[in-house]
């Protein structure tokens, strides 16, 4: 449970107000030890400042006799700055303003702010008994909090909350900026994001879009892929890869995967190429790029474009080059759980080809070359300005998050291999020339269902990416590729199990996952 700190508690601690200070401080410490977050309400800043000033002056010693009011103010502010350093700021929003009919507007503001959280996830830590009596469901005293038993907090599969808390000021500023300028579609944030993403990836063009599924569709439309054409891809992926090929009337031609990397096996691609083949679409699964030198060599030989489905690999590198900069077109997803995730759907396309970039830009806006002049058939595939604004805030920390992902992935492998003498669990293989963003940290296990149940009981969530390869999905039964056609994909789909992963996974939680797993 998180705690919103009432002014009286903050003053107890900042002014060492006795006899309350130790208990108030202990409650704050206890919250952090349990993994809870401590919040201060931005609307309370003045109350904090002036009440602390008042308290410091009230308790001044003989030595403080000549300290001026101004100096007390400086002391109060310095102390509050230090106190707030490891706390999170909860914004005062417009709905917190109209509180003058309330018996206590200040309290009303705090209670309204708490109302924006899920029930029971946060309480106001206060010594104010009047407030506690009036709002028992929203308040807790330090002693009541200290008496709470330590809950066995379950681990998040992907901890988006901690990320949000760490970028909240930037995030809120960006969101409010969009609300205020009102350019909700193709606003200035979209162009700013595209420029920054193109720079990050190291390509000439970035075209943002409405999802990582629509980007695949836009890319293939720009390449002129249509009915009867064939696109070579992997069956061991999320449905969108094959689905978009099929939606265009084209035929997904599956090629089995490399059993170590789980990515398409380049050695098997050439045999799948026919006169009808119009593109190769490898997927950089789980955050590791496919072998693009080998794939591009085959594509060049046959004059085919390559679309990297980099929905899971944005931020990863292949031989020092960024994912999305490795082929004719790179396509990524900003689905919330992706390494760079929005707060809704989103995606982006990357290319160095000017003509393809122009085509993709037009296709995402109904094939529009200029307003109401449509040079080709397109779709409604734009990224919302709000999502661009959110992604801009997230992009600030992205490089650091990519490093954390790499570090935590390597740590998982080290911990599992150290404890796993009988080699019952196979950790992900990373090519020496690759870095992975570990969009998923996926191991191979023989007894998946039992392990998942065991982990679930210990509060450790898991997922299966993916339980059925595309050729065995009923939606693709018309392709006539039954069991045994792609044996490696089929075998791995029975054994893959993804563990909690993300840049904010704590060492303690990671250890707990490994201990429970083995």
């Amino acid at each position: 449970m998180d705690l919103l700190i009432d002014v009286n508690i903050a003053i107890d601690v900042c002014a060492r107000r006795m006899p309350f200070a130790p208990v108030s401080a202990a409650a704050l410490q206890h919250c952090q030890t349990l993994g809870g977050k401590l919040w201060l309400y931005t609307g309370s800043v003045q109350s904090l400042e002036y009440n602390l000033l008042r308290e410091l002056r009230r308790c001044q010693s003989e030595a403080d006799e000549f300290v001026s009011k101004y100096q007390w103010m400086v002391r109060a502010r310095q102390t509050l700055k230090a106190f707030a350093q490891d706390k999170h700021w909860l914004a005062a929003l417009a709905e917190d303003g109209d509180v003058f009919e309330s018996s206590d507007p200040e309290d009303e503001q705090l209670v309204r702010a708490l109302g924006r959280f899920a029930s029971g996830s946060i309480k106001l830590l206060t010594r104010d008994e009047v407030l506690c009596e009036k709002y028992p469901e929203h308040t807790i005293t330090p002693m009541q909090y200290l008496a709470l038993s330590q809950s066995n907090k379950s681990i998040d599969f992907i901890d988006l909350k901690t990320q949000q808390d760490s970028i909240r000021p930037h995030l809120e500023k960006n969101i409010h900026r969009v609300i205020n300028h009102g350019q909700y579609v193709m606003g200035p944030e979209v162009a700013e994001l595209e420029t920054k993403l193109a720079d990050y990836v190291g390509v000439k063009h970035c075209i943002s879009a409405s999802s990582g599924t629509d980007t695949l569709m836009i890319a293939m439309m720009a390449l002129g892929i249509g009915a009867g054409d064939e696109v070579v891809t992997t069956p061991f992926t999320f449905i969108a890869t094959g689905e978009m090929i099929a939606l265009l009337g084209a035929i997904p031609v599956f090629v089995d995967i490399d059993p170590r990397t789980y990515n398409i096996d380049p050695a098997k691609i050439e045999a799948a190429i026919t006169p009808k083949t119009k593109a190769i679409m490898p997927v950089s699964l789980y955050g590791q790029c496919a072998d693009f030198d080998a794939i591009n060599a085959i594509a060049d030989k046959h004059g085919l474009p390559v679309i990297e489905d980099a929905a899971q690999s944005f931020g990863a590198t292949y031989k020092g080059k960024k994912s999305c900069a490795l082929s004719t077109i790179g396509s990524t997803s900003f689905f919330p759980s992706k390494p760079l995730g929005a707060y809704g759907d989103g995606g982006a396309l990357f290319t160095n080809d000017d003509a393809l970039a122009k085509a993709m830009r037009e296709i995402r806006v109904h094939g529009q070359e200029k307003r109401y002049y449509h040079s080709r058939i397109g779709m409604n595939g734009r990224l919302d300005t709000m999502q661009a604004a959110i992604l801009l805030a997230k992009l600030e920390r992205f490089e650091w998050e990519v490093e954390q992902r790499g570090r935590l992935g390597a740590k998982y492998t080290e911990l599992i291999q150290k404890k796993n003498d009988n080699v019952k669990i196979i950790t992900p293989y990373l090519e020496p020339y690759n870095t992975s963003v570990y969009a998923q940290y996926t191991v191979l296990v023989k007894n998946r269902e039992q392990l998942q149940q065991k982990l679930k009981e210990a509060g450790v969530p898991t997922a299966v990416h993916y339980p059925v390869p595309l050729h065995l999905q009923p939606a693709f039964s018309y392709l006539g590729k039954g069991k045994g056609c792609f044996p490696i994909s089929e075998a791995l789909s029975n054994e893959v199990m993804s563990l909690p992963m993300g840049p904010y996974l704590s060492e303690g939680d990671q250890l707990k996952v490994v201990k429970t797993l083995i």
Partner: protein
Amino acid sequence: MQVEAIYNQGKIELSQPLRLKHNHVRLVITVPDDEIEVQDNTFNLSPEMLTSAEAMLDKLEAVRNAPLSAGDELKSLSAKQLERIEAFELRAEMRKEQGRPV
């Protein structure tokens, strides 16, 4: 200095008349164990909790008592800030009357 104090109906009275410089002063008193009928466990923290809480309080105290820059001695509060001080004094008084902490 040590002085004798009498507990009378919930109030502590010093047996020796003393005029203190401030209206609010923290004192430490000794309560005979055999006089305690019920001990409210309110402030009975574990040693670990107390140590970690004290560390937090010490850290903030160090910040609070850090030497001020020389320029701060010459500055004074604006009229607006002084008005706010008065306003918050009034708020504190009202809350005290209501029996609420500041």
